[in-house]
């Protein structure tokens, strides 16, 4: 067959250097999550299709069957398998879980956004309220900073705000969908054409143009009468207060138009952006209803950051430092070379041992080609 030379569309090999750099980033995040009390878990990577079917469009999942003909799919995200796991147990709540794993999404293409990519994330389950929201948001920002993404902007929204506002404006099913699309496209043209009062249109236009912090909320509050929408604004305000304590307020802006996210969010939502990649590097929010699908009523909030996109951004921002491989190659007399290489390794220097019997000249050429700094050519008996 003709495909044996390639990786499938949307999937790539992680080359030496990049792979080591990625492992180092993973280690930093793993440590950060641990320091904040999040225990890492590993889910199998293959789930029953039923686990995902209420949350993800069918064509986004890679599917196959098990030996009994039951439909399986590959892991699409970290959140749903973790919710499935947590709902099936009787742990004392709240529980804090983290993961760093590969995700597989059919129908994604290009721009550093691949079908196979690595995400790190946390889920805080069994905890509601602004303080829990803020912990997750703060950890998302901390993660990005830890990776070196210091040019960071984070948008925070609240899905209950738009729900409440739709009630207040008396929008019906079809109009809601239209307005939602218009807001998420920042499409003022469609909003202007709606059959609403001038004041209501201005309120909707304010949503598309929001982007401040406390001022955005204060300007919006007098226009809001719905209790749910008011509570949503209060929730964001409390989150901003806590961000200030962390010293993260400078990264955060309020975006009340952040409603294009996955449908399962029920409260705070956020996205993190940096230069040189066209997609958000992290995203998250509150999803209190997800665990109901798995038979348990459990508030939850979480975030995930794409390591694959983060690496693309770091490379384009000239912040990529390929991790060094071995710095020494030892050749020549084999017995002496083994002893020397082992001694170097014992004291913490990564050393390559020549097993092909190269001459000193060949060793030199080889070392140059492989980027190995130091050559040690052993003459029998002496170093």
């Amino acid at each position, binding site marked *: 067959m003709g495909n044996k030379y390639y990786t499938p569309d949307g999937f790539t090999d992680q080359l030496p250097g990049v792979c080591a750099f990625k492992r180092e980033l993973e280690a930093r995040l793993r440590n950060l999550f641990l320091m904040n009390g999040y225990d890492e878990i590993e889910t199998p990577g293959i789930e029953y299709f039923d686990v995902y079917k209420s949350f993800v469009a069918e064509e986004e999942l890679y599917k196959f069957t098990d030996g009994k003909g039951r439909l399986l799919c590959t892991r699409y995200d970290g959140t749903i398998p973790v919710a499935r796991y947590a709902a099936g147990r009787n742990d004392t709540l709240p529980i804090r879980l983290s993961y760093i794993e590969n995700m597989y999404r059919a129908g994604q293409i*290009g*721009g*550093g*956004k691949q079908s196979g990519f690595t995400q790190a994330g946390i889920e805080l389950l069994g905890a509601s309220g602004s303080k829990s929201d803020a912990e997750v948001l703060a950890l998302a920002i901390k993660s990005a900073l830890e990776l070196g993404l210091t*040019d960071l*902007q984070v*948008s925070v929204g609240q899905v209950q705000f738009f729900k409440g506002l739709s009630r207040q404006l008396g929008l019906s099913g079809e109009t809601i969908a239209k307005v939602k699309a218009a807001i998420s*496209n*920042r*499409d*003022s*043209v469609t909003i202007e054409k709606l059959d609403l009062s001038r004041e209501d249109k201005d309120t909707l236009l304010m949503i598309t143009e929001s*982007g401040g912090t406390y001022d955005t909320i204060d300007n919006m509050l007098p226009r809001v009468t719905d209790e749910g929408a008011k509570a949503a604004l209060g929730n964001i305000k409390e989150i901003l207060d806590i961000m200030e304590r962390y010293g993260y307020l400078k990264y955060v*802006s309020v975006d009340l138009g952040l409603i*294009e996210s996955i449908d399962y969010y029920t409260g705070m939502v956020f996205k993190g*952006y*940096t*230069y*040189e*990649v*066209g*997609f*958000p590097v992290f995203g998250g929010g509150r999803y209190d209803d997800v665990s109901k699908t798995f038979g348990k009523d459990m508030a939850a909030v979480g975030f995930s950051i794409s390591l694959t996109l983060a690496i693309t951004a770091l490379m384009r921002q000239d912040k990529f430092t390929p991790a060094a491989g071995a710095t020494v190659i030892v050749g020549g007399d084999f017995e002496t070379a083994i002893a020397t290489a082992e001694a170097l390794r014992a004291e913490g220097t990564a050393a390559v041992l020549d097993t092909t019997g190269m001459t000193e000249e060949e060793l030199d050429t080889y070392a140059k080609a492989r980027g190995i700094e130091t050559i040690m050519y052993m003459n029998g008996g002496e170093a």
Partner: protein
Amino acid sequence: MLTIALSKGRLADQTLDLMEKAGYDVTAAREKSRKLILEDQDAGLRFILAKPSDVPTYVEYGAADIGVVGKDTLLEEGRQLYEVLDLGLGRCRMCVAGPAALKDKLDDIPNKRVGTKYPNITRNYFEGVKKESVEIIKLNGSVELAPLTGLAEVIVDIVESGRTLYENGLDVLETVADISARLVVNRVSMKMKADEIKPMISKLREALEEGET
């Protein structure tokens, strides 16, 4: 520095006229050459000239911050973008067209074959709006030939004056959508480069409103 993706052809010139009216120096982009990227350091603008159907792709991936492209291309490509302004350029309609005899009788034909350059728009219209499945035949040009030669019963295509249709005994049967050029913005750029992009949107909006009065 803002990167702007223009749709090669007449729309690019019209866009530049509008930008000029809004107070931007676009001399770099007017340069007659075979260069595909035209940059003006002082004005802080870089223009890329792309095939219209590729403009949404450049903008979605962030290779360009802003783009100007027809609504037809946006509908067909279905990209994740901010669609912030209707520039009113290149106005036309996306229509279902066919033999004039089919007028008001379109629903009577089961399992229609539809010739089009826009398979996604066609699918969304027939499956989403009209709730029927059709056989879509993807064509690359002179779509009007399809009903004339019996390749398809009807077509879905852009109609400006309708002259090509009428001269070939065809007529507009249904309107799918109104089309005009839109200003689109990458979702990350809108945040990261808000200081440059937001003023540009309001200046262009003002220039448009001036044009209307």
